[in-house]
């Protein structure tokens, strides 16, 4: 009688790792001959690798983005302002970058207005009429008082060597009116088109909604020049 060999049996009987042979005897996976068992292992390995690659793809990309923006979680700086120089991919947002540089140029906003991308409410364009769209910045004034951009004492820093105002500190604004109100002030939306090109708006402090208008990096502004530029900023409405 011709003996059936494992090698000639239907393949489907072996990939389960054990089956009943033609003689009705159960065979376990350990009974399988090496070529077949190797094939099973190879197929399983290939499936495992494929699944791993598929799983690692998006996850890996997310990790990259997270790392890319992760630095911003410890050293945050979001920059916006007319002609703001943007040279570091930083920001609090964990959102993915829209471009390889981590920054986008928003043609719908003011000329040369750039920001770290998709930070909610960070760079929404203003309509010509100044209608309130999501986004923008608000400056507070004491109730009943006109809004002012005059810096308080110690609200900016001067480089002791050069005498120029540092880009590290400036007058406070917030990226939403509620933050202003919650601190006891009346909110005034800033007309971003009125921000001089030598100034920038950067996130500062532990409150992610808090920003400061500071000299743009690389500018050389004396304190009185900085104050004069601040006075050119207008609010809407």
């Amino acid at each position, binding site marked *: 009688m011709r003996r059936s060999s494992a090698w000639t049996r239907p393949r489907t009987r072996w990939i389960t790792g054990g089956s009943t042979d033609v003689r009705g005897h159960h065979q376990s996976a350990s009974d399988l001959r090496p070529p077949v068992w190797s094939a099973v292992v190879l197929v399983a390995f290939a499936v495992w690798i494929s699944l791993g690659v598929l799983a690692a793809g998006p996850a890996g990309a997310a990790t990259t983005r997270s790392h890319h923006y992760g630095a911003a979680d*410890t*050293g*945050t*700086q979001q920059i916006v302002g007319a002609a703001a120089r943007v040279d*570091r991919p930083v920001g609090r947002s964990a959102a993915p970058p829209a471009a390889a540089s981590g920054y986008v140029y928003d043609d719908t906003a003011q000329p040369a207005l750039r920001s770290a991308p998709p930070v909610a409410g960070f760079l929404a364009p203003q309509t010509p009429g100044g209608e309130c769209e999501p986004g923008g910045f608000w400056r*507070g004034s*004491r109730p009943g008082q006109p809004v002012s951009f005059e810096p*308080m*004492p*110690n609200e900016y820093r001067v*480089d002791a*060597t050069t005498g120029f105002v*540092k*880009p*590290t*500190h400036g007058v*406070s604004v*917030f990226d939403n009116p509620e*933050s202003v109100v*919650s*601190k*006891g*002030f009346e909110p005034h939306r800033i007309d971003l088109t009125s921000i001089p090109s030598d100034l920038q708006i950067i996130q*500062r*402090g*532990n*409150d992610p*909604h*808090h920003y*400061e208008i500071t000299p743009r*990096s*690389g500018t050389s502004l004396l304190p009185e020049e900085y104050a004069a530029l601040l006075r050119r900023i207008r609010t809407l409405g």
Partner: protein
Amino acid sequence: MAMDTPAYTLRFPKDYDTDEEIWKAKGYAVVEVEVSGPVAARYSLTIYHPVRLAQDIETELAEVGAVFAEPNVVVVTAVGRDEIEQAVEVLARRGFRGLAPE
């Protein structure tokens, strides 16, 4: 030997009471401490929230001048009146050692 806490006066920025929330959001404030008695001195302290301090250090190193050097930096959990007062009291118990007088 226990050190006597020197008498001191803590001065907050002008309008700090109304602007406290703003300074807390900023994450820093500059206060003045005037110590009286035999160790009379005057100190200007920069009170920082850790996040703000890290931001300023980063910007200073990257964009200003490759070094961050600021005297009398005091780091607290929040730049509020209570936290500042507590921090200065701790410094007072230490005799304000390590701080640079003006």
